[in-house]
């Protein structure tokens, strides 16, 4: 569905992605793992059109994504829950969610998706009139994920969705990810919580300083002792 081939991307002088390739098959959950600064977020930025690689190609169902601005890419069905939440602080919770559905035309179904998001995160429903900027860290994280879900995307990009969430909610999050994946959404998941990510993913890539150093099915990776040591710890 999405193919990144041999891209190089820079921030000024910083070479963030080096001859980088990944492939995401339709209907799968693919996860990107790696230490801080490995290039996970940069990969998502490239897909969303926020970072332009200097070489290589990015295609979505065969179509070249590099020529499109971010907003066009969203309307093609790729949405991201970005790093650092980036909620709209002066919107209420509900307005944030509505902004997530901006590109959708099917008005009636938006209400349905909204109900579903409130189902997933009852806290958001309780606070739907609260200004998002005053939410707690974890509440904002829920909102960022919920907002991405509102777009009903074909491909959902999640950047560290469990960040700042309480253990109970983390468990819910992974359950929700699996659930929407079953309903047909393809997912690219960036996580620090490698163990949990691999337990729900189909396929995984391990990144180090802008390069893919290892890849394989989630099962393989979980079984790999090197990876276990480096990313999964004692779990």
């Amino acid at each position: 569905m999405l193919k990144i081939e041999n891209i190089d991307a820079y921030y000024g002088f910083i070479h963030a992605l080096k001859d980088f390739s990944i492939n995401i098959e339709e209907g799968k959950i693919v996860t990107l793992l790696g230490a801080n600064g490995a290039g996970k977020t940069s990969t998502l930025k490239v897909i969303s059109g926020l970072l332009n690689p200097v070489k290589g190609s990015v295609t979505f169902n065969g179509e070249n994504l590099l020529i499109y601005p971010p907003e066009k890419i969203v309307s093609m069905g790729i949405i991201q829950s970005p790093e650092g939440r980036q909620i709209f602080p002066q919107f209420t919770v509900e307005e944030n969610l509505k902004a997530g559905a901006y590109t959708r035309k099917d008005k009636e179904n938006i209400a349905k998706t909204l109900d579903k998001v409130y189902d997933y995160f009852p806290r958001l429903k309780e606070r739907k009139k609260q200004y998002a900027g005053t939410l707690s860290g974890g509440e904002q994280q829920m909102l960022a994920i919920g907002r991405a879900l509102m777009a009903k995307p074909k491909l959902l990009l999640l950047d560290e969705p469990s960040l700042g969430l309480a253990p109970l909610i983390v468990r819910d999050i992974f359950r929700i990810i699996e659930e929407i994946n079953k309903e047909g959404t393809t997912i690219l998941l960036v996580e620090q919580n490698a163990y949990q990510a691999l337990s729900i993913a189909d396929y995984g890539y391990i990144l180090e300083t802008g390069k893919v150093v290892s890849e394989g099915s989630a099962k393989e990776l979980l079984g790999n002792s090197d990876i276990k040591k480096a990313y999964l710890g004692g779990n």
Partner: protein
Amino acid sequence: MAIFFQNIMAGLETGSLYALAALGLVLIFRTSDVINFAQGEMAMFSTFVAFTLFDGLGLSYPLAVIGALIFALLFGFIVERIFIRPASDASLVSKMIITLGLIMIIGGLASAIFGIDSYYFRQAISADSIDAAGVVVQPNALFIIAITLVIMAGLFYMINKTKVGIAIRATAQNEKTARLMGIPVFKVYSMSWIIATILGAIAGILMAPTTNVSTTMMAEVHLKSFIAAVLGGFGSFHGPVIGGLIIGILDNLVGMYISLTWKTVIVYGLLIVTLIVKPTGIFGKTHRKKV
């Protein structure tokens, strides 16, 4: 008593004009955080176009006005496209400087094209004034007040009840994230400049009978419209309108009952005091960054 109400009436009329000018300012500010210092200059230019269509080409008043509004549409689009968008990398103060540059360019072009003379431009409605218990009421003034309220309501509806409104407000808060939600932020910028320029043109055309059509016609209105916007609060559309009306009325009452020569000091002093008490304007909401 009639004198008092006469002052209120006149204050409402001028205040409405401040408000109209302020609405354009606020719209641009709310989408892109830019203070457009050239708003007054752009309004002046559009007014000259209206006047030239009316006086030079002999079009009827409504046609001339419509022509000027169409011009304003293109004008706003072009300014945003040529001057503002290429500088989208620049910081906000830099964008403010761009609008300062625009003042020079537009002001300079206006006097090169239209000359430096002043011209009389008729009122929108030239019916005879009505005497209401000693207070002279001009139909034209009522028209101005009404138009301001209608535009305010329209903008309020657009921004709070429509999808476009969501797009505008989201863009204002975080352009990058707005794009990540699929909001075409550049269209939003373009649109807000267009609407703001049209609003400025309306304010200018309605202002013209009082200040005459000249390159400096909007100087005072423009300054007052800033104050109106800040006094009422940049965060809403009714705020600037009420801010404009307050300034219009206050100016007159202070001038009438306190001092004509010190009125500017007093009115601006009140503005500053109001802001200290209510830092985001009378109707502004405070959005503090959470720690």
